[in-house]
């Protein structure tokens, strides 16, 4: 994988300018938000380089790329910086040729953006479940709340009677949702999808997508990362990289 590089931390040298013909993404191998942008880079076949950031020990220079040191951030060869994962994904779709991931039709584009609004509680809820479970706390209420959000999405798929959220082909909205669904199993909350046949079908279809497949994170490596992360080990972010 292009992103199999050690994360840069405090004291590291700032990277040089981005060579022409390439775009750079500041990322972290296990971050779901950065995952969105990496999916789009892959789906559109965009030549890119990845610089992983140690999120627990951020390089001082990184705050010149993002005021709060968040990821993902795109940097192009004109030194333009783009952040917020959704903005970065749309930028890539607009700026690069090839297959458009957002529909052309203004109403269909608007529909995908409205769908994204329906998703907004999912990242927070999945993270809260993960933290609760890792800290040995009960999270029945959180899981119920997450299931409620999934029910809304299940209803949409049922109503549309399509495999994917944008129709019969995979499109931007599917990639924007995917990272959290990929993590349900390794977070220990895969049962939140019980009794949701349309979402399960969607998940299965997503796993057949070549882009999703290419970026699928090995479960054992992810678990290794999570174990170190919850022990506050600063080497967590490099777990699974060859020594």
């Amino acid at each position, binding site marked *: 994988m292009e992103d199999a590089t050690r994360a840069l931390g405090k004291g590291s040298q700032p990277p040089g300018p981005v060579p022409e013909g390439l775009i750079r993404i500041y990322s972290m191998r296990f971050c779901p938000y950065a995952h969105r942008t990496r999916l789009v880079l892959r789906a559109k076949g965009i030549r890119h380089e990845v610089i992983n950031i140690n999120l627990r020990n951020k390089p001082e220079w990184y705050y010149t790329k993002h005021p709060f040191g968040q990821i993902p951030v795109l940097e192009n060869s*004109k030194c333009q910086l*783009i952040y*917020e994962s959704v903005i970065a994904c749309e*930028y890539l779709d607009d700026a690069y040729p090839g297959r458009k991931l957002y529909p052309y039709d203004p*109403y269909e584009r*608007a529909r995908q953006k409205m769908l994204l609004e329906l998703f907004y509680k999912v990242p927070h809820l999945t993270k809260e479940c993960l933290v609760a479970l890792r800290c040995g706390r009960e999270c029945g209420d959180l899981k119920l709340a997450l299931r409620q959000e999934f029910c809304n999405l299940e209803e949409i798929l049922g109503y549309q009677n399509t495999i994917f959220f944008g129709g019969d082909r995979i499109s931007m909205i599917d990639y924007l949702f995917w990272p959290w669904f990929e993590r349900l199993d390794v977070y220990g909350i895969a049962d939140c999808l019980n009794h949701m046949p349309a979402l399960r079908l969607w998940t299965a279809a997503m796993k057949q997508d070549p882009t999703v497949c290419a970026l699928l994170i090995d479960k054992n490596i992810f678990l290794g990362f999570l174990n170190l992360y919850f022990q506050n080990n600063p080497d967590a972010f490099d777990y699974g990289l060859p020594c």
Partner: protein
Amino acid sequence: MSGGSARSLAKGSAPPGPVPEGLIRVYSMRFCPFAQRTLLVLKAKGIRHEIININLKNKPEWFFKKNPFGLVPVLENSQGQLIYESAITCEYLDEAYPGKKLLPDDPYEKAYQKMVFELFSKIPSLVASFLRRQNEEDCSGLKEELQKEFSKLEEVLTNKKTTFFGGNSVSMIDYLIWPWFERLEVLELNDCADHTPKLKLWMAAMREDSAVSALLTEPKVLRGFLSLYLENSPEACDYGL
């Protein structure tokens, strides 16, 4: 273009018929800053539209079929397509209708406007909290937070060296953030902009824009609405009619 000054529809009202061809409908409320975004874009692009005002303190049952969240603004076109979330409605209008493009064509400049929009994003809830404040402590805390947010916007104008947030003429980002700045005076929050001179200049320049000035609400009418609205009065939305 009709309906801006029409009485709002409430519970028990008959649902409106389909939208005639050649027109787009916006479900709105005369004092809602989010709906004002959409009205500004409709005006700026010269899009033929009709307005149906909704009584937000006594919503018609049929309105939840237009937007399951029951919020304004909502766009409905003659094909029966519904679009909601104010920023999404604005972008839809810019893409679907000809004439002056409010969002830049350049992908980076477009992304930049969206990043500035994120920088603005805490302001609506801060202003709403300020409206509902209980005491003087809340007041000064909220004002301080608002000043912090204003400084971020000041920095953008300083870096860009332009009058408006998207360049030297008004564009989408200016319209998206304007409604809250229009309300500063009535909320007695103008002094929060005292240390952000470029922002103050921007506010003055915005008042000269034709779409903005066409949709300005008289401060005393806004004040009248606000006191009724804070008391949850079902008469609030029609204040001044």
